[in-house]
């Protein structure tokens, strides 16, 4: 390619190149993909690469919103180690992964099995289960806050049946669990669609053969369905674990900007937002937390993919 480029630039070679259609095609091929990719590259460069590199650089500075700051080496990361709120954020984000991911891997699969059958009116249920996915997370959060409020519908029902009111939004752990429930509720439909696509590719003969061998519904699910959609389960696990570790909206809306009572429900991304924004935001420190979030999410992805490869082996 380098030679064709130098040929094109030499005065003597140009007429020869112009006289040959084949040479002209070869010359233009390497350029045109770049031209086509240029708009995309610009967008990726400006809105993804630049902020990413900028965050990495800022993580090693004491930059604040209105003050450029100076290089401070690993000071931000050292401070993280002694920041109680960072450890609370890390704990909550990790708990979120542990609480949400198994539910989001399994429940949508069961839901997909239910709505997979072609029976009259099933389209209604498929749409209904998908509705939370398209609903705005802000609206979803507000609705659940109203439902779970101390004087909300859920507590009124609980009081009616004699259980008494439960502090879903005032207890640190119940609040986190409530936010997890909302995440699962909102994500069910999305992953159900992914599973529906995977289930459509499972050969019916396998189920029939298992039935002939006397396998019941549960056994067929474990021995036929699960192995057939295992790679989809891994994909769902990877996607949902990254999303769960980066959770922000649900917890922010339900626990408030402080992250619940005494900030005990703060997640890492909430901490990034709280620390790094506003006129007195510590951009450098927030960037350091962002770097930790990035490293952990990449590690989570690798972990899931590695587990998948081991299974394959």
């Amino acid at each position: 390619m380098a030679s064709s480029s130098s040929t094109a630039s030499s005065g003597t070679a140009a007429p020869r190149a112009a006289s040959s259609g084949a040479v002209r095609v070869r010359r233009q091929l390497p350029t045109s993909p770049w031209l086509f990719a240029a708009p995309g590259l610009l967008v990726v460069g400006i809105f993804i690469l630049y902020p990413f590199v900028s965050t990495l650089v800022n993580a090693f500075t004491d930059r604040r919103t209105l003050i450029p700051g100076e290089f401070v080496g690993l000071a931000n990361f050292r401070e993280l180690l002694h920041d109680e709120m960072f450890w609370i954020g890390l704990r909550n984000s990790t708990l979120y992964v542990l609480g949400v991911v198994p539910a989001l891997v399994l429940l949508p699969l069961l839901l997909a099995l239910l709505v997979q059958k072609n029976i009259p009116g099933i389209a209604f249920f498929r749409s209904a289960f998908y509705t939370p996915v398209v609903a705005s997370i802000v609206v979803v959060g507000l609705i659940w806050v109203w439902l779970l409020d101390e004087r909300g519908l859920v507590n009124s029902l609980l009081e009616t049946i004699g259980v008494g009111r439960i502090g879903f939004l005032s207890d640190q752990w119940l609040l986190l669990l409530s936010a997890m429930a909302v995440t699962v509720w909102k994500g069910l439909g999305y992953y159900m669609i992914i599973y529906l696509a995977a289930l459509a590719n499972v050969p019916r003969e396998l189920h029939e053969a298992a039935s002939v061998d006397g396998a019941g519904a549960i056994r067929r699910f474990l021995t036929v369905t699960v192995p057939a959609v295992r790679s989809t389960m891994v994909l769902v696990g990877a996607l949902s674990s990254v999303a769960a570790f980066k959770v922000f909206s649900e917890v922010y809306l339900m626990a408030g900007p402080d992250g619940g009572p005494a900030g005990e429900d703060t997640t890492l991304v909430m901490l990034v937002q709280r620390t790094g924004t506003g006129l007195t935001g510590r951009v450098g420190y927030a960037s350091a937390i962002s770097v930790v979030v990035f490293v952990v999410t990449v590690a989570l992805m690798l972990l899931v993919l590695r587990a998948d490869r081991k299974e394959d082996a």
Partner: protein
Amino acid sequence: MPRRALAAAVVALALPLSACGSGGDEGGSTDASGKVEGDITFQTWNLRANFKPYFEGLIADFEKKYPGTKVKWVDQPAEGYADKISADAAGGTLPDVVNVSPDLVAPLAKAGLALDLDKSAAKYKKEYLPGAWASHEIPGMEGTYAFPWYLNTGPLFYNKSLFKEAGLDASKPPKTYDELFDDALELADKSDGKVATLANVPTIEDFGRYGVELMNKEGTAFAFNDAKGVELLTKYKELYDAKALDSQALTATPESSGKKFLTGAVAMNPGSALDLGNFKKQAPNLYKNIGITDQITSTGKVNMYVMGVMVNAQTKRTPAAVAFAHYVTDAQNQMSFAKKVAIFPSTAGSLDDPYFTKEDGTDETRVRIAAAKSLKNAVNYTPVLFSEQMKTELRNSVAKALQGKVSPEEALDNAVKACDRLLQQQG
């Protein structure tokens, strides 16, 4: 060829990026004495929805008074206002004239983005109440960094029927902190913990109103962990344990506690004359039973909120920007704005207008007159250096004390330590 294409792509990438970041190195002039002309941008804080005609008229009058000027008005929603300003300030796109509160001015002034009015517009100083003018001074810095605009304060509202149900005399609301705490405990006891009296944990203004010294005189360190501060937090802990403070107070916002008051879950809530209209519209039953009493304070001085109008120090149109900021906040325009909404002018003598002194028998007027009277020696208790991050530190520490995880002393010591650290990091 690909190498050249790659180089072109890098240049193409670098060109737009090179425009990012620096923003406003070219500082504007501090001299406001030139001809008032040119285009300027004016940013307000969530005012378009209710006051569009007022601001359009104001701008039209200014443009008529100063031919050759053009004011572009932008309004930003209340939510995330500080974030919007910080993005504009960092990106060099801060409007020429900006509606701010004192705590927003402080970091902008420190970054050299707010014009020092003591240098550029000192001749206007005498038009304003001295306390209001001083509200935009920044500890550790010389100068004043915004024109004072409207002031606000308000009474304490209470639900008379809840007071009566608890056997309390609804015509004698609490006037002192001791009375407040006693009534709150009684109300919780009589309602079996179902009705709380307050819905918010104590904020920095509450500590100030209780008589706690918030910062040292030099403005270099916080001091709200003194004996009085501990005493207030200990009282709140008693209320929380007795359910006299709402169980969701630890995560409450002013909006959520306002809703609790509307629904009768909470017996008392601070507010302003503006709220009476809301009660009438949204909770007619509450409106029939609404009680109005003065803010409770141990200092004799109520809390007031101050709004300001700042001039961007990097504006290219300093004379026009200063003239417009003054025009928006002058006595005539503030008075006209005050008659449209329950706010109070910060200009000297305006509060003596019959509108703020003459009773007409309505609750609205009674609240307005009482508030205007109290404003004459009111204090903005929120220190201008008290950032959002510091407010979070205080709320979280207070919450830990109320939950019993740490003692009130330890909670306030921790909060002061964290706020001092943030103060030093602010530079």
